[in-house]
């Protein structure tokens, strides 16, 4: 990853949610949703962020565009630290940094027409102020995401899930962003529609030179769409590498078990699945040492004492595990 091509660089991002209790609602405990996450997205490429439910993927996404306020860390976007911005500069920065949400049924305001939904970013960012100009742009965007421009007077409930997600993508595209954070954009869709929406993401990337931070728990999807992969477990990254390295030579036991769980579409191939025992520990009280040691099949004595640090093993392949150091 060349430094000057880097569009987004996240450094030691931390988000702790305070859990309040007692009569004076003091902070009793902290839910450590994201606990020191660093990665970068080179311009024009796609970084896939994978991990199981509840590991903090969505909090990373929301922390980057400050929909939740991170506890600490840095988010450098084109060299500027977004977390140091005041609310006005942040509003301006969001033009280049858009998000597509997971649930297409919750992400569109049920009381606004498609035209107002897609046109709103154009109004609030003072891009198209005249109504005609805006209508033209909305029609253009609808065609770009594969919907007919005749549909702009309709309301969200008249559309299917896949169509709604296309509307959400059109809304994100309306301000000409450079980076789109896609927070599980297809996991709420039917399998048949999923492929179409994924291909739409790829087409748009080519056409507009977009970069994606693509968050998902679906590994086969990651392999198809990403250039780089970061694997997350319980608020921390465990492994980062180019997509082929992750799939061909995973180093972290957690990554290995995830990859072994990808179904192979051939009944004759014996799958050597590594089944993880138990559930992910609570992010309120993460285990000491390596966070994965409670479920790791290759646990060593040191794993429960010392936390492994992220180390580069070979060009661009980084892993945080005592096995490889």
């Amino acid at each position, binding site marked *: 990853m060349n430094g000057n091509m880097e569009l987004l660089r996240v450094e030691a991002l931390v988000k702790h949610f305070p859990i309040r209790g007692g009569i004076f609602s003091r902070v009793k405990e902290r839910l450590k949703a994201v606990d020191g996450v660093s990665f970068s997205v080179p311009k024009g490429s796609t970084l896939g962020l994978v991990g199981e439910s509840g590991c903090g993927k969505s909090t990373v996404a929301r922390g980057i565009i400050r929909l939740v306020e991170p506890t600490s860390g840095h988010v450098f976007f084109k060299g500027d630290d977004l977390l140091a911005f005041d609310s006005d500069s942040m509003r301006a920065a969001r*033009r280049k940094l858009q998000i597509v949400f997971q*649930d297409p049924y919750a992400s569109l*305001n049920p*009381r606004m027409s498609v035209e107002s939904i897609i046109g709103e970013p154009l109004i*609030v960012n003072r891009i198209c102020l005249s109504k005609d100009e805006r209508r033209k742009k909305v029609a253009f965007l609808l065609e770009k995401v594969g919907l007919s421009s005749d549909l702009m007077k309709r309301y969200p*409930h008249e559309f299917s899930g896949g169509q709604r997600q296309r509307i959400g993508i059109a809304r994100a595209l309306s*301000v000409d962003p450079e980076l789109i954070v896609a927070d599980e954009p297809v996991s709420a869709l039917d399998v048949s529609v999923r492929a179409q929406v994924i291909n739409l993401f790829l087409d748009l990337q080519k056409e507009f030179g977009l970069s994606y931070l693509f968050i998902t728990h679906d590994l086969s999807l990651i392999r198809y769409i990403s250039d780089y992969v970061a694997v997350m477990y319980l608020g921390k990254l465990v492994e980062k590498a180019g997509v082929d390295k992750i799939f061909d030579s995973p180093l972290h036991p957690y990554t290995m078990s995830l990859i072994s769980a990808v179904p192979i579409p051939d009944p004759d191939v014996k799958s050597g699945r590594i089944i993880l025992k138990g559930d992910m520990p609570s992010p309120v009280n993460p285990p000491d040492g390596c966070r994965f040691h409670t479920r790791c099949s290759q646990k060593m004595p040191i794993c429960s004492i010392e936390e492994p640090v992220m180390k580069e093993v070979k060009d661009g392949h980084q892993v945080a595990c005592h096995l490889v150091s």
Partner: protein
Amino acid sequence: MSIKQKPYILIFLERFKRNQLAVAGMAMVFFLFIIAALAPRISPYNPALINVDQILSPPSSSHWLGTDQLGRDVLSRMIWGSRISLLVGFVAIGIATFIGALLGSLAGYYGGWIDNMIMRFVDIMLCFPTFFLILAVIAVLEPSIWNIMIVIGVTGWMGVARLVRAEFLSLKDREFVLAARASGASDFRIIFRHVLPNALAPVLVAATLGVAAAILTESALSFLGIGVQPPTPSWGNMLTAGKDNIEIAWWLSLYPGLAILLTVLGYNLLGEGIRDAIDPRLNN
């Protein structure tokens, strides 16, 4: 291309129609509106016309609902009184809904100390026995219909504020609100264009029920003589006259009383009908 799904308003109307009591309530309210709108055309006499030859005459063919202690036609006075009831109901609840929606929005959206300040103020307001607060305020101000409407409105917004706040708490972290924030929308725009329109259904119910309560309060104040002042006819001050003559002229008490009863009942049935129709849990 698009999936056909019934617009929400049609589903709502269908459910509402199945509730016969609600339809009856709506009919009563509608009837009252017609009466109030057509008052100058349908009232048989001038409501302020004094006729000394006809004092306290019982219901007859010339005075369907009888006359009062000054010989004025009770039916005409009731027809004109319906305007007062409607006006008080709507203006007072309009004021209450405006204040409640505004403070509830701010409390729910911003949270933290703003929320605490506003909601503790709500608690304080709720501690006052509202009716006696109104009495005290009207005793200081001069009793006029505008003062009454304002005072009823200013003391009746707390329920709306709580409702709106609760709706905001559940709506403000929904993805479409986050999406609006991500696209750079201001707080003002998010509150009034994204969240509030989605929070209005329960407010509509509260407002409909509130109209009934406001009409009742106005009648009570007028009955006590500190509401709408004679000679302006209102159902409440007609009852006062009825009380003085109740042993010899039952019609002076019965008809205004019935009118208040049916109006309040109508609004309550309508409000509850709307509430049931928008409640997704009662989907049968």
